[in-house]
């Protein structure tokens, strides 16, 4: 576990997600094994191959699935207490279609705010402000089905940021977004005071991060400062990419 101090670490009152010996499996298949992670840094990146268990780890942290062995806490809250978790954690799903619940942009944005206990009028006003701030006021009444893939992805991000949870889990936040949107969003994310835990296939995205975890077949393969983990990860990926078939795949 990296023991750092400095601007990247939040105070001890801002404890992040904690996994103790946590594992997850479905039937005979084990997907995650024996994870011991104290995720207290402000910026944490997660790298790993397709199917290595990154999304599953995020769902575990968000309390959307329960560990089949070991335990998970978030800021001292048990993840099965969904209401309390709202303050603690927000998650951006990998596939926007899996995240969007309501038929119009406005309803989608307002829902999370209502869940946090704000009144309908407040939620509506906040929704309008968010859209206006992003130059997308004309989206309010739009049907989500008519938005393009990237536009839907962006909507999901706005919905999470609006709820301002202490930790934000991002599952490939920039996949499918165009360059200007990516740049703006990266700036916005950089500026957020909250803890970010970001899954990506692009190590370059993790510049300025305090910690990087490399998942491999459901286990932690490396965990530490970006300068240590990323070069090793890159080298291995390029080595694998140069070979001709996935003889290494077990799943």
């Amino acid at each position: 576990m990296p023991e750092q101090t400095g601007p990247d670490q939040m105070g001890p009152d801002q404890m992040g997600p904690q996994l103790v010996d946590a594992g997850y499996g479905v039937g005979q298949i084990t997907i995650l094994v024996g994870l011991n992670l104290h995720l207290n840094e402000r910026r944490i990146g997660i790298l790993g191959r397709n199917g290595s268990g990154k999304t599953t780890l995020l769902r575990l942290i968000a309390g959307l699935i329960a560990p089949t062995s070991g335990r998970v806490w978030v800021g001292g809250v048990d993840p099965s207490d969904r209401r309390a978790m709202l303050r603690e954690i927000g998650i951006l799903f990998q596939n926007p279609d899996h995240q969007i619940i309501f038929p119009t942009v406005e309803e989608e944005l307002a829902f999370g705010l209502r869940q946090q206990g704000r009144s309908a009028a407040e939620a509506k006003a906040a929704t309008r402000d968010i859209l206006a701030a992003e130059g997308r006021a004309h989206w309010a009444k739009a049907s989500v089905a008519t938005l393009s893939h990237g536009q839907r992805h962006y909507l999901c991000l706005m919905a999470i940021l609006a709820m301002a949870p202490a930790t934000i889990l991002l599952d490939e936040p920039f996949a499918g977004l165009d360059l200007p949107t990516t740049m703006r969003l990266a700036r916005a994310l950089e500026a957020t005071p909250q803890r970010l835990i970001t899954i990506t296939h692009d190590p370059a995205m993790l510049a300025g991060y305090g910690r990087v975890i490399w998942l491999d077949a459901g286990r932690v393969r490396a965990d530490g400062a970006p300068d240590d983990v990323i070069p090793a990860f890159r080298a291995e990926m390029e080595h694998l990419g140069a070979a001709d078939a996935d003889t290494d795949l077990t799943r």
Partner: protein
Amino acid sequence: MLTLTSPVETALHRWPAGVKLAALSVASVGVVAYQMLIWPAAVAVAAVYLLQGRDFARHGLAMLRPLWMIVVILALWHLWTGAWAAGALILARLVTLVALANLVTMTTRLDDMLNLLERLASPLARIGLPPRTLALAIALVIRFTPVLLAKANMLHLAWRARSARRPNARIVLPLVLMALDDADHVAEALRARGGL
């Protein structure tokens, strides 16, 4: 989704939904219990429709159109058996009751209906159904209906992208699976944002 509320604004639109529903219940029970009320009720209902203007009355008539076949059949039946008076009463009762109920539907906006429903259902909170859950359930049905259609279209597109033939029975199961997966995803999305 469009509703069956009449776009022609009438004075009845401004009545509280609860009052309209209570009046409907009383009137319906009365008409069913006392035969002598049938004709006066029929005339009264017709008058109410006409008083709201021509467009509204025509809209009301359109709402009764699904009944025309049974009305014709019943009429013929009673003409044939000779029990004319009894037949007329049965027909008048059927049409009056349906028209009366339609009147409430046509003059009550969805919002007002939902508010009334929420109040009527509030006692259910004690047996584990809070009004918010019911409201969310209704919102979800309204969401899923177009989404199911869109998914069906999407699946159709996916099929056509790789096949020259029209989709056959093999597509039914994937469609159901897709819908169920969607329900799972929405369940998870709900949990991710605070759950029920």
